[in-house]
């Protein structure tokens, strides 16, 4: 069922770049250890190898950065072959240059083969990592969260709708439509990533329903003028956090409280901040931590080290801050999962 799509890694992701840097340098160190006659000469041997490896490594990473989008558009094996051949030629070229000044050079053929092997190893590594992490795992994590919208919310909302049916049938109708939409979106087939626009819509529908039963106790402030609706984000990024904000921030207080949702784009980063009143003596039944841990995990699966999630009690408020790379949804029209459901 969970077919894993073979894909090259995102060469603009810091985590991917870091992994390549570490693995290639480890391989160079290993080669130096094999080559050096004793521990004393290890450093010399490494510098010797680094003279070729580092320029090639830096140049390759720059080229991969530039060609990231083009490569992502090719079939997987074409991409791998292009990179392997490219890296091999770069290495051979560098070695040839060095051979002109240094008689102890490795030889163009051997250096090229070494580069080819290492590239193949890296390709294999990212391939396996891809299999292990996504989308199967991300989907499993998402399903764990999908199953978790609080029954407390569902039954209280149904009760509130029942109270409207005789007095204000029109409003009851709208509420049931909201509820249906909400559950359809929450239970939709897990898309790899969804758009921020849809996530905002989902959180809005959820808050409309909470407003119905909490009335003036719940105030919501949206600060999303600078939020890019086309940003790609993991599905169910906002709604569980907003649900927690109501459950832990609004319901335990008899006085009205405000939930603030601020989303903005800053250059190529997307910043999300959620604030709600903090009730230190409110009993936490773990729910909060589960949703936070789940979202943190999925952010990592999707954005690796480039995503952050931090929580903080600041004065009378509880704050959640998230930051992640701003990726735009591809130009192709996003499949409407409502139609699919």
């Amino acid at each position, binding site marked *: 069922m969970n077919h894993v799509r073979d894909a090259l890694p995102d060469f603009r992701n810091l985590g991917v770049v870091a992994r390549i840097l570490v693995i290639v340098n480890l391989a160079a160190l290993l080669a130096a250890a094999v080559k050096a006659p004793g521990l004393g000469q290890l450093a010399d041997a490494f510098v010797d190898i680094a003279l070729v490896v580092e320029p090639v490594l830096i140049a390759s990473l720059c080229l991969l950065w530039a060609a990231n989008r083009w490569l992502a558009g090719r079939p997987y094996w074409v991409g791998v072959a292009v990179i392997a051949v490219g890296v091999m030629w770069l290495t051979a070229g560098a070695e040839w240059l060095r051979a002109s000044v240094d008689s102890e050079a490795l030889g163009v053929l051997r250096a090229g083969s070494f580069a080819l092997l290492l590239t193949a190893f890296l390709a294999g590594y990212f391939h396996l990592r891809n299999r292990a992490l996504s989308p199967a795992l991300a989907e499993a994590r998402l399903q764990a969260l999908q199953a978790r919208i609080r029954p407390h919310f569902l*039954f209280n909302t149904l009760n509130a709708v029942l*109270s409207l049916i005789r007095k204000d049938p029109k409003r009851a109708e709208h509420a049931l439509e909201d509820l249906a939409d909400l559950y359809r979106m929450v239970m939709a087939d897990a898309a790899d990533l969804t758009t921020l626009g849809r996530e905002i819509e989902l959180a809005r529908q959820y808050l409309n329903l909470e407003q119905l039963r909490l009335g003036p106790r719940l105030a919501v402030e949206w600060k999303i003028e600078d939020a890019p609706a086309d940003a790609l984000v993991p599905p169910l990024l906002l709604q569980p956090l907003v649900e927690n904000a109501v459950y832990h921030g609004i*319901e335990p207080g008899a006085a009205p409280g405000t939930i603030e949702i601020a989303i903005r784009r800053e250059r190529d980063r997307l910043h999300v901040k959620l604030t709600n009143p903090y009730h230190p003596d409110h009993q936490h039944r773990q729910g909060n931590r589960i949703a936070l841990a789940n979202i943190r995990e999925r952010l990592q699966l999707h954005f690796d080290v480039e995503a952050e999630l931090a929580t903080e009690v600041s004065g009378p408020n509880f704050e959640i801050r998230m930051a992640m790379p701003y990726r735009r949804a591809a130009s192709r029209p996003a499949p409407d999962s409502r139609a699919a459901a």
Partner: protein
Amino acid sequence: MTAPPPLRIFLVDDERPARDRMREVLGDLAGELPNVVVGEAATGPEGLTLLPQLPVDVALVDIHMPEMNGMEFARHLAALERPPAVVFVTAHDQYAIEAFELNALDYLLKPVRGPRLAAALTRARAGGAVRREPLERAAAAAGHGPRRYLSVSERGRIHLVPVADIVYLKAELKYVTVRTAEREHLLEESLASLEQEFGARFVRVHRSCLVARGRVRGFERVVDEDGEGAGWAVLLDGIADRLPVSRRQWPIVKALANG
């Protein structure tokens, strides 16, 4: 045979739509089970102010409420001379439901159906007043944590003392004196059970005295009452009283001061 007088009902729920809905269902039942809603409240403390002044047979009480949950509300209600019967209402609280069933307390699930409500009201009329013991056991089993208030029944009213305001609790002959910065109250509970419930907030300084950990300002050398050697007394925030620390408790109390 004359029809029984209408059942007098009081509603406690923090959500207005939920109270409205309950009134509707009760209205639908009025034909087979005459009833009248005599009052309603949005929080526990509000309910405890209003309810004792009204003639109430049954209180329908939501569990999940701000300030004071439904179980605590019912426990304070039990301090009344003639408390009403209580039927709990909850949307979803697995722990509370298990606790109710274990302790034979009646509850309804939201959304509430007419026939179930009628059955619960009939049972409540027959079963009578809410009692403290099963409630205490249920509250402990449901894991709702300690109460936020202690209640003192005074001339048919319920006076609530926020636990956060209490400086110390002292066992007297039959009562426990509850001391706040402003005044004293007498409470009919045992110091041992209070220590068990509020152990996280109070420390025992003496066989007969619990002091709020956050109110300890310092210590002072004093001469023992019997004149044998010197002991220590606790200095408190906000009030001038000095409470002797027993030798047995001194190491624990001292550790608290150093920590």
